């Protein structure tokens, strides 16, 4: 579904600071990957939100099917023993 009058869509991921992971922050239009980085810098890091940017063509993202939500995610609900909630986390650990 490429519209010649519309630049392709990119998804933007920003790393807030060293040691953290890149988080999805939104999307934008750009004609190429380098322009997408520039736009992401101008749109999503103008208030010092980040130190690193990833951009990914939106069409490269494969998403789970919303109609399969029940079968994909419900079965995990009653398996609380998978959560590491039985450990004491030291106060010094900030970004677990």
């Amino acid at each position: 579904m490429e519209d010649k009058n519309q630049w392709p869509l990119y998804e933007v991921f920003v790393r807030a600071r060293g040691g953290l992971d890149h988080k999805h922050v939104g999307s934008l239009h750009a004609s190429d990957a380098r322009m997408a980085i520039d736009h992401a810098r101008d749109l999503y890091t103008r208030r010092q939100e980040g130190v690193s940017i990833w951009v990914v063509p939106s069409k490269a993202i494969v998403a789970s099917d919303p109609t399969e939500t029940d079968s994909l995610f419900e079965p995990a609900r009653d398996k609380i023993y998978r959560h590491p909630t039985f450990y004491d986390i030291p106060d010094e650990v900030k970004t677990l």
Partner: protein
Amino acid sequence: MSAAAPQVGSEALFRYVLRLGDLSLVLGQRLGEWVGHSPALEEDLGLANIALDLIGQARMLLSYAGEIEGRGRDEDKLAYLREQGAYFNAILAEQPNGDFGQTIVRQVLIDAFQLELYERLAASHDERLAAIAAKSVKEVRYHLRYSSDWLVRLGDGTAESHARVQSALDLLWPYTVELFAADELDLAMADSGIGPRLPEVQSAWSARIEAILTEATLRRPADRPHAWHGKRGQHSEHLGYILAEMQYLQRTYPDARW
């Protein structure tokens, strides 16, 4: 730069700092005209970001100029209450936006100039100027990345985009000569180790522009003598309109505050 560099008077330094500040101020104001009119929402923000960087540079420089002058004029008084003839920007900055391509051409030409200028000013004997330049050079490096990327896309793009930016380049090129035409003030600043030698800035600028134009498949126009002196306060017909819009509020409601 020798330790025995001659001193310059505060009047000369005042005018020199205004030259630097007015270039950023007028170009920033011009770019601001794009807000709400850009070809894409993303470019709206991109151009506005550059405009705000430039206004920020102008604020630092005009504040400093006001302190040098010592007559109680702050950045706002200098920006909003000077007449056209007391503005000292090179007139390339005040040339109209035209289409997006023309704005980009003007931006590339000035970004590359400010980059070479600030890189050298960062080593100025004047500590305040050196600090302002060191901060601004990071901004300008991004501005040139943005503008030169666009010039390459447009120049090496479609036949239509190529023709448009080539004609914008032909239109604006003659105004670049003034940037490097050193007058007594530029020479005095260079002699005292405050400002860079403009021929040095010019050859670095020229090499940089040459590389960008080659990649953008654009033809470099020939240099021609120029007959304008925005740096001395003699402006094209465009600056008056810019100032009328920019200064309207302060002149109509003196000392109005945000």
